[in-house]
Structure formats: C-alpha cells, structure tokens
C-alpha cells in the first residue's frame, strides 16, 4: 500500500507492507537513527514524534502514520548542525554506545516543546521507558536539564 507522510518536513510517498511497522519503514528509507530495540514498546529506542508527540514507532503500523507528520532524530540535527539537545547529551556524557540516545533526544524535544523549564522530576518522568544500558539513568536526566538551558539560550 502507498502512504503519504511529512517526514522531517519533507513530503514523502512510500510503498509499505500492510503489516510493516513505522520503525522498519523509516529505516528502509535511510533514517536509521531510529533504533530497533525491544520491538515491544518498552525500551524507548525507536521513539519518534508523530504530530509532535513521542510514540514508540515499533508498535505503530506504517499505515497508521499515513497522513501524519513524523520527526526523527535526523530531523533535529546532524554532526554539522548539532541541535542544542544533542549538544547537551554529549556534554553530560550521557552518550556511550549511543543506541538509546536518539530516542531520549526525541523525547526531550517533546518535553521542552511543552515544558521549557522542566524540573528533575519532570525529566525523570519523561525518560521513564527509555533504557540506557551504558551510562545508567542519571546522566541523561542531567542532560535534559542542561538541554532546557541550551534551548532557552538558543532562542534568546
């Protein structure tokens, strides 16, 4: 079946299998920053924004995303144009293997879009469901708080 989406601001028409998940569709089209982890909706590695809200793309059918707007990690920044949230994760050494990082960065983007001054409790609650096996869960929380400062700084 054909689906039409806005992916990172670009209109796309993709041919998909009926049973294909959004994670696969994105990765098949080169957007491999979205990771395949538990494939059960539980780990956060596959997170993307669907109409501005974080969703686990591993349990969203590509067909369900037809007509919607998707933002992946590639839509936030790249090595030459690093997004302030990405910079905060690097600065807080909240990245080691990097497998969990795209999901956490995308989740942080949604949080800051709705709550530009999160508390540590907000950050913890927001990253619940994002598992980091390398750095533990503390540094990503620090990264979220730093990211809030950086995003605010970038806007002023």
């Amino acid at each position, binding site marked *: *079946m054909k689906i039409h989406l806005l992916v990172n601001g670009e209109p796309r028409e993709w041919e998909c*299998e*009926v*049973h*294909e*998940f959004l994670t*696969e569709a994105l990765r098949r089209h080169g957007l491999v920053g979205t990771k395949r982890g538990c*494939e*059960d*909706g539980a780990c*956060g590695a596959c*997170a993307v924004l*669907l109409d501005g*809200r*974080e*969703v*686990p793309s591993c*349990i*969203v*059918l590509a*067909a*369900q995303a*037809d007509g919607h707007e998707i933002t992946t990690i590639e839509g936030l920044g790249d090595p030459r144009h690093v997004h302030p949230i990405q910079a905060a994760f690097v600065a807080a050494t909240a990245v080691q293997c990097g497998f969990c990082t795209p999901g956490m960065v995308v*989740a942080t983007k*949604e949080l800051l879009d709705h709550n530009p001054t999160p508390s540590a409790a907000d950050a913890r*609650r*927001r990253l*619940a*469901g*994002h598992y980091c096996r390398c750095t533990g869960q503390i540094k990503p929380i620090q990264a979220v708080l730093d990211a809030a400062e950086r995003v605010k700084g970038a806007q002023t």
Partner: protein
Amino acid sequence: MYLALEDYSRPQSIEACLRLLQQPPQPAALLAGGTDLNVRGHEELRRVIDLQALAMTEIEALEGGVRIGAGSTLREIQEAPALQGAPHAALREAAAAFANVAIQNRSTIGGRIAVERPDQDLPPALAALGARLQIYRLINGVVEEQVIDYPLGDAARAVLRGALIRAVEIPAGVTRSALRRLGRTAVDRPLATVAAARAGEQVRIAANLQGPGAADLRRLSRSEALVTEWRGRLPENWRSRLRESLLAELNPYGDAFAGGEYRRDLSATLALRAVAAIHGEEETG
C-alpha cells in the same frame, strides 16, 4: 515484522467499521492506538480496521458530567481542561500511572476498556466514578446504540465483544475522587489499585487486586454502604471500622509478586487512603 496482516482499512463511519469487522479476511480487529494489538501475541490477525478517521477524540463537559471520546489518549485525558477538577482526580491519576509518556500518547481509553484484562489502574477509576459506555453493535445487520454501565466482571464484559466503544460518560454529581496504587517501582504494573469517589453522600469504592488470575475488578459494596452511612462526617474510629469491613470483603490473592494476605492488607490500606482523600482527611493508616 511478526504480524501477518493482509488488510488495513480506515473507514469514515461507525457502520462501515462494524461491517468490515465481519468481512474476510478473518480474524479481524478494530485498531486504536495499537499498544496492545500491535504487540506480539496477535500474529493470528489478518485484518485491522483503524478507527482514527472517526476522530472520537472529544473531551467535553456535558450537563455537569464529562463525555470522553473513546479515541482520546491517556495523555489527552491528563491534559483536558474538562477533567482538571477534584471530581476527576482518580481518572487523571490512573492515566498518569500508565507505563510511560510515549505509551500514554498512543493508548486510548477505548482500547484500554476493550482489552480483555480487568487488571491495571483505569478500570477501578472508571468503576468508582460510575462511568457509562456508549457502544455500537451490529445486531441482525442493523447498527444499534446502547449506553451501558461500566462492566464489572467477565459476564458483564460479554456485551463489549464485537462492539465499538464510542465514548465514556462520567456522570454529573461526583464531587471528589481519588486513586491509590502501589507498584514495586513507578513504572511497574501495580500490586493493587483502589479508587474511591463521592457523589453527594454516596461513596463508591472499586478495587483491583492486580495480577493475572486475580479476582475481577470489584465494587466493595459493604464498605461503600458503611462510608455512605456516615454522610460525609467520618466518626472518630472510622479507620478501624472501615478496615475491618474492607478486610472482610476483599479476597486474598497471592502470586509471585506478593502474598495473598499482604495484597489484601495493602488494598485495605489503599482504600483507607482513597476514602481519606475524598473526605479531605489526612492519609495515614
């Protein structure tokens, strides 16, 4: 890609959804957020009928009550202006306790109600609030609407099979509600959940001793009657009297996560706290 779907459709009307549900290829299912259906364990499905074009996402105050479209997500329920007050606290608390934000962004209230599992937090909240469901079914080829009480127990849930849940109606009159739960961690499924609500002098208490095989979601009618009798003014020894009533009414249910007596005692404590909260009392005991 463990699903083996052959057909996906996104009909524009309730009638079209219900008719497609009966057509081949089978088995078929209505699809909302997909946080249950799109997860392993549904490999047998051949057709899904996506409900998103029905846009059942209204959350609106209505004659003192609130109407919640079945497609509303648990995140939308937490944020909706019509659900911000004390009467609907139990509902917001149940939605916020659900897994994590990404799942809350996808899970719909209709999907949660339709899933054949009486455990978890939302059902006790809905039962305590006296929720009613607007459902549609195909009976002898004709679409029929029904408004039913929130079903407690497997027998009552039979009416939901093959039905499309259109909306949840929270009636007027509830002045305060509260939900208390305990899990091993913030993101774990709870060991027990109790919700309580006050509508005038009437008090409703609903409990789940959580776990696969645990007794169904239940209203604790004897304890409800006891608290209702107190007409909003709790007597000095209310905690011990209510605890005694609760313990007599709750069945012990033990599993690998908690022993039966512990879970029963925990549920009684959670109920005491929920009842304290809806009376503005301190939550001790």
